[in-house]
């Protein structure tokens, strides 16, 4: 992937299962605070990360678990989080955005995860290569 985490990035290596979610949350929250983000920013980053990790557990690893690396760092006042897994790749550009206009009766019940990630972060970049799947999310001016 084009963006590499700096050696100084906070790093968590864990098996992606539902049971790991609370550890991931605590790790991410700790990173946010250590990197100077306030509670408001942290809340929204935790939501974006929650959505991304849930997708990796459910879709990339189809519930069977697998290795996951999470790296967080800051560059200037921008916050970076990079997720790396070895599950099934997918084509994000083929995922239709959720229909936010139609009434509840005809709305799809899912499809909000990617939408949330994109709304909450300034950059959401997937890449898939021989080393696995990479997801980089950036929140610009996260500290301030």
């Amino acid at each position, binding site marked *: 992937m084009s963006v590499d985490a700096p050696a100084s990035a906070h790093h968590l290596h864990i098996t992606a299962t*539902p049971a790991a*979610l609370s550890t991931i949350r605590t790790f991410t929250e700790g990173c946010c605070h250590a990197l100077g983000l306030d509670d408001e920013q942290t809340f929204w980053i935790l*939501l974006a990360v929650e959505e991304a990790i849930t997708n990796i557990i459910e879709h990339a690893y189809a519930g069977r678990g697998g290795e996951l690396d999470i790296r967080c760092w800051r560059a200037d006042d921008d916050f970076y989080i990079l997720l790396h897994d070895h599950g099934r790749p997918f084509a994000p550009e083929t995922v239709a955005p959720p229909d936010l206009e139609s009434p509840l009766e005809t709305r799809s019940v899912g499809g909000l995860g990617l939408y949330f990630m994109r709304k909450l972060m300034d950059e959401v970049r997937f890449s898939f290569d021989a080393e696995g799947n990479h997801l980089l999310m950036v929140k610009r001016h996260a500290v301030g």
Partner: protein
Amino acid sequence: MSNDSLTIEHQPLKRCDLFRIRGRVDGETAPRLEQALRRVLENGRYKLVLNLAEVTFLSSAGLRVLITIAKECRRFNRGNLYLAAPNQRVQQVLELAGLDELFKTFPTEVEAVGNF
């Protein structure tokens, strides 16, 4: 698991069923919420009030449950799912998902219950 994990308090009333949801509604806990709500639907009761005042975290997995259950409640005009007392965070997440207009929401649980 962090200690604000999901707790669900169910109070059956004559008119409707009141649920007080506390803590996190996320990918891990949303199935439990769905199960608790579905148990009431299976008893033929389709008027639900969800008090969200003490929900600390709500992800798309939680919203998926709300949408699914609300749809079932409204079918054949037999009921509805009302939201009560959403805190600011919950309100913001609903707005993010464009759902704030789709759920009937009341500032207090007594207003939600009293308006069925």
